[in-house]
């Protein structure tokens, strides 16, 4: 392939990412270092000397922010674990069903996407309300799990479907019972699927504000709600930006940690992932 063709292929997505991801991210970084305007938003830019870390100092000064961040991570982790537990048997069953039925089952998994996200959350309000569970932590977790379950099922199914059935036969032939076959063969080989599903669930849940806002009580707000509040309600853009940056750094740190762990612990599984 000529280098011109290569550039023609690479350039459009690169430009898109620069314009709509890199630049906005830098704008947020910059915004977090500026001062609030008289009527909210940002004060007029007065040169590099006016940059301040006031917003970060404010965040560090009040434990409530660390607490909400920590709670957000715990909620995201709980949601992810519940998604894994619910999605695994389902993905396994789909992967094991006859070939012609698999597509239909996958279609059923993604069918909820056909209706609007908010409509589906409002449906949960109607389900949970009469049961007396609305505006509780349970409602938030149930909503988050419900919304993100397909993102766990699909990568897991894609992974499980590729498993060579001969491996399970080999394990059985060499003396492994059904339980051992799962834990020694199927499960370790599905870890790449679990990890991609976990990333697809964990990270969006961290930034989610609609579900806690609609289904949760006042004590259930997450970091996403906080960020949204700073921008839209308090109009403290530097603080909102600083919260976003802290969240992003935490996520990147976790992702790096996971990648490092995966590289060390998953030796060999890349052959099938």
């Amino acid at each position: 392939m000529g280098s011109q063709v290569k550039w023609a292929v690479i350039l459009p997505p690169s430009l898109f990412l620069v314009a709509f991801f890199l630049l906005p991210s830098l704008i947020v970084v910059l915004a977090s270092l500026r001062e609030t305007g008289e009527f909210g938003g940002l004060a007029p830019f007065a040169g590099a000397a006016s940059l301040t870390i006031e917003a970060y100092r404010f965040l560090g000064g009040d434990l409530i922010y660390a607490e909400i961040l920590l709670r957000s991570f715990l909620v995201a982790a709980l949601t992810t674990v519940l998604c894994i537990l619910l999605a695994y048997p389902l993905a396994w069953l789909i992967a094991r069903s006859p070939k012609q039925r698999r597509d239909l089952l996958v279609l059923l998994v993604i069918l909820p996407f056909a209706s609007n996200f908010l409509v589906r959350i409002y449906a949960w309000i109607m389900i949970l309300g009469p049961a007396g569970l609305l505006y509780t932590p349970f409602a938030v977790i149930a909503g988050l799990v419900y919304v993100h379950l397909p993102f766990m099922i699909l990568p897991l199914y894609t992974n499980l479907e590729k498993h060579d059935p001969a491996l399970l036969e080999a394990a059985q032939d060499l003396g492994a019972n059904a339980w051992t076959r799962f834990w020694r063969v199927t499960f370790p080989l599905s870890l790449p699927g679990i990890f991609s599903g976990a990333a697809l669930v964990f990270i969006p849940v961290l930034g989610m504000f609609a579900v806690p806002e609609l289904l949760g009580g006042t004590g259930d707000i997450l970091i996403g709600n906080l960020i949204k509040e700073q921008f839209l309600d308090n109009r403290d853009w530097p603080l909102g930006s600083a919260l976003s940056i802290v969240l992003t750094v935490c996520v990147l740190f976790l992702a790096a940690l996971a990648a490092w762990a995966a590289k060390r612990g998953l030796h060999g599984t890349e052959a099938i992932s």
Partner: protein
Amino acid sequence: MPLLELRNLTRRFGSLEAVKDVSLAIEAGEFFTLLGPSGCGKTTILRMIAGFDAPDGGDILLDGVSLAGVPPEKRPLHTVFQSYALFPHMSVAGNIAFPLEMSGKSAPEIRRRVGEALELVHLTDKADRFPHELSGGQKQRVALARGLVNKPRLLLLDEPLGALDAKLRVEMQSELIALQREVGIGFVFVTHSQQEALALSHRIAVMRDGRVEQCDEPDKLYTQPANRFVADFVGRINLIEVTVTSSSKVLLGLQSPRLGDIAATDLRPIAVGERGVFALRPELVRVHGHKESADLKNRFQGRVRALLYLGDVTHYTVELADGMVLEALMPNAAPGRAKFHEVGDAVWVCWRHDAGVFLRD
């Protein structure tokens, strides 16, 4: 008592009878091969022995005890799969340790036996590698070590050399023979390659359409095929339609409508007028440039239609007077001479009267 006995084994898939009334006995320490074209039922038999499939009729006995209802994980038999089926997330040592762990061996014993098994297949330096880092031949050897390490009563091998290239396959054949002799464990080997079967086995069962056509030692199978299918499937062979014209104690007179009279021998009582084929191996046919004075009774004139120079041997296709074609294999044993005849040369083909076999229809 044979180690493994198949009694009237039958297996149906819908209306298809994949295995029909197969009875075989495999002795301890034997290298036994199931040979046949794809779809002949050989792999189905192997899967039934391993326990992955259950027979519809008949029984499988190990040491005289039926294996019916015993799941694969409880059978003291291990399988080497065609795709090797090595666990991709376990190292070579981890793969080989697996069956030992499953049978609850202690850690020091596992370590010792994995070491021995690695030594057996010459992979000691690859213990910490992962399957995707190995070549085809090395994967093959890991699969063998994994199958043998826990000392099964019998090792089942499902076309284990199929995925290897030609040169490696020949190397692995010698290794397999040496390995089997060293461990003394019975091998049941499935293949569609008659060359592999002949080279490796103590005994071969040739299968077609779910039935055993002949079960014999390799040389018997090759020189005394039981019928036209076995003759044709095992090795190259000339098959000539004949009618028996005379039959004395050993001498047999055959008449080919196209070739004329053929002199042959047979120890069996054969009646005059019987029809069948005369089967003649190409390496027993001589090709000469002149009519030899030797006392070969079977001599026919022809012309070289094609030849394949293979280095060690040359494979001639000779067209006889009435358009009939005979194949001949001649060793290139004369120093400095590559081949003896060219395409288009007028030649004589001849063979000893005890060279071929008569097979009844």
